[in-house]
């Protein structure tokens, strides 16, 4: 059964209730904010004709940052999906790299200009290269987990996708194999309510995406994906358990796609304005900031300081990236095959 985790109503709260250090909480806010501001700037650059395409994670930052922070950086593997800018920032991607990726610059470590923006991949950071084809990464993650188990390495793999992507056959083949072999893989589904224009009920016959785990005897949980702390508190134990040999876990983070599907999409033709307005009130950034402020974890000034730091980083990254070299036309011919050195 899927255990739902909602933030407990608290009287007088101290930092101890967060089960996170001040530094971790600060990081959370920083990464969520950085992801959002980068996405905002990217969209602006798209409108200015500087970037042909933007696909963003607005509304999913809490889910992404909370999940990524539960991992061992540089040791655990991640097979993310296109919205996971937040995940990549936590794992070490810089704002400048994010902008190189947006512009398809030669030095983008993800796709070197060969890949669309938001198609992540960074070998050293253990971020698996991804295609646009949804859910294929679930099998790659399962294969990495199998390999780690065969080598007896204490590695956990986290792979993510949207709720719509759980309808693909590869979803079934991944969870089935991972369950049979009790592999250390976390299937992290960011349920943002839509698959482009299709609302969740058009592809999900059960109440929760997490319920899909039942057919495999896989443990699962549903968590409020707008609450970064709750996400961390849910993913962390699942990761630790997987590392101890406890097998796979399916986690559904309930969040919302605050923006259109991509810079090419007009969501007004299928999404009720009222629904959007309701969710905007639950924006993970305002929610987090309001909470740590009212709980007195951080004085307003510190948070403002983070805001300024992020704004500066984003401004610098955009300007810097635009001046970086484009790929050469002939680079289109490189690395079709890997040569043995």
């Amino acid at each position, binding site marked *: 059964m899927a255990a739902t985790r909602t933030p407990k109503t608290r009287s007088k709260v101290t930092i101890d209730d967060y089960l996170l250090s001040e530094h971790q909480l600060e990081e959370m806010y920083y990464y969520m904010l950085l992801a959002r501001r980068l996405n905002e700037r990217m969209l602006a650059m798209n409108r200015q004709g500087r970037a*042909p*395409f933007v696909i963003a994670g607005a509304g999913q930052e809490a889910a992404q940052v909370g999940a990524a922070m539960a991992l061992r950086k540089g040791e655990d593997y991640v097979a993310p999906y296109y919205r996971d800018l937040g995940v990549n920032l936590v794992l070490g991607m810089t704002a400048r790299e994010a902008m190189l990726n947006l512009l*398809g*610059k030669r030095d983008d470590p993800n*796709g070197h*200009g*060969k*890949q*669309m*923006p938001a*198609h992540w991949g960074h070998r050293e950071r253990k971020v698996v290269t991804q*295609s*646009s*084809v*949804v859910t294929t990464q679930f099998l790659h993650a399962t294969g990495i987990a199998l390999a780690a188990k065969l080598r007896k390495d204490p590695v956990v793999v986290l792979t993510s996708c949207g709720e*719509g*992507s759980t*309808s*693909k*056959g*590869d979803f079934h083949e991944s969870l089935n194999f991972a369950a049979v072999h009790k592999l250390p893989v976390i299937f992290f589904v960011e349920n943002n309510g839509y*698959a*482009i*224009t*299709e609302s969740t009920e*058009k*592809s999900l016959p059960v109440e929760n995406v997490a319920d899909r785990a039942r057919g495999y005897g896989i443990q699962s949980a549903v968590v409020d994906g707008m609450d970064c702390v709750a996400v961390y508190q849910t993913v962390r134990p699942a990761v630790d358990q997987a590392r101890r040999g406890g097998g796979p876990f399916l986690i559904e983070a309930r969040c919302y796609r605050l923006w259109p599907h991509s810079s*090419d*999409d007009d969501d007004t*033709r*299928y999404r009720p304005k009222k629904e959007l307005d309701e969710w905007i009130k639950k924006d993970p950034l305002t929610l987090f900031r309001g909470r740590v402020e009212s709980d007195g974890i951080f004085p307003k000034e510190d948070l403002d300081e983070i805001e300024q730091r992020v704004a500066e980083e984003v401004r610098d990254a955009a300007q810097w990236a635009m001046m970086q070299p*484009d*790929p*050469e*036309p*002939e*680079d*289109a*011919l490189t690395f*079709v095959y890997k040569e043995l050195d």
Partner: protein
Amino acid sequence: MATMTVIEAVRSTLDEEMARDDRIFLLGEDVEAGGVFRATDGLHAKYGERVIDSPLAESSIIGISIGAAHYGLRPVAEIQFADFIHSGFDQLCSEASRWSYRTNGDSFLPMVVRAPWGGGVHGGQHHSQSIEAYYSHMPGIKVVAPAFPADFRSLLKASILDPNPVLFLEHKRIYRLIKQDVDNAPAETQLSRARITRPGADLTIIAYGFMLHESLSAAETLAGEGIDCMVVDLLTLNPLDTETILESAKATGKVLVVHEDTLTGGLGGEISAIIAEHAFEYLDAPIRRIAGPDVPAMPYHHAMEEFFMPNREKIAAAARDLAAY
């Protein structure tokens, strides 16, 4: 006069056909809202449950269309981008293509799978692919790839009426780029018929889809240089119109085959081989091919994308060499 774009040609034809035959229904991702390219705009409002949003699962879109067609309906499935048809390869190859063959025609599949294909749209590796070569090597499947709005209308109609599974390829780049007065333009109504779009005496350019347009403008340029190019629009890629291919090759003795798909194993090889086997004695020059380079898929950055894409200049240059041969 009705001048329309390619996307309007597709949408209006779907509308007219659905009005004509209530066995026709649409199945695909986001088709109720009109689809990402708006090819089905307004059809859900008009035809209700006959326009069905599928879950995000291509094998099911094709496999379910197979079942519905076997039952007697006329599914017109949409694969959002041709690049995503690959997980449905098994249902098309192992099942759809063999349905009539293995039952001696007792069962058959009047179904259409529409797929936007091709590059030059900043789509990167997974929104730019040419998939025609795979399905043109699949007897039992028909593959259609028009270039002009009028042909999109007449051949989409013909595909829907055909009792066999038809992969109907719509090049994304020309969806809104190419307009035509469809009432007064030539429209091929039969599958497996190519058209000599432009007559010419010096050499023959064979192309389809977006590349047909690039070939025509290359021919324009070359005409100014006194090189008279014949341009053939294949229209249907499987089964091929071998007769027209050979006739056009024999007419000039010099052939240039053009496609955007990567060179090795592309459809151009088959066309060249047909000519090399059956029009050998008419050839005055090597059969040239202009195609995308042998890389896995089209890169995203426009500099590399342009490098990958064949275009009028590259075609004209190759044609000049050939004419001079």
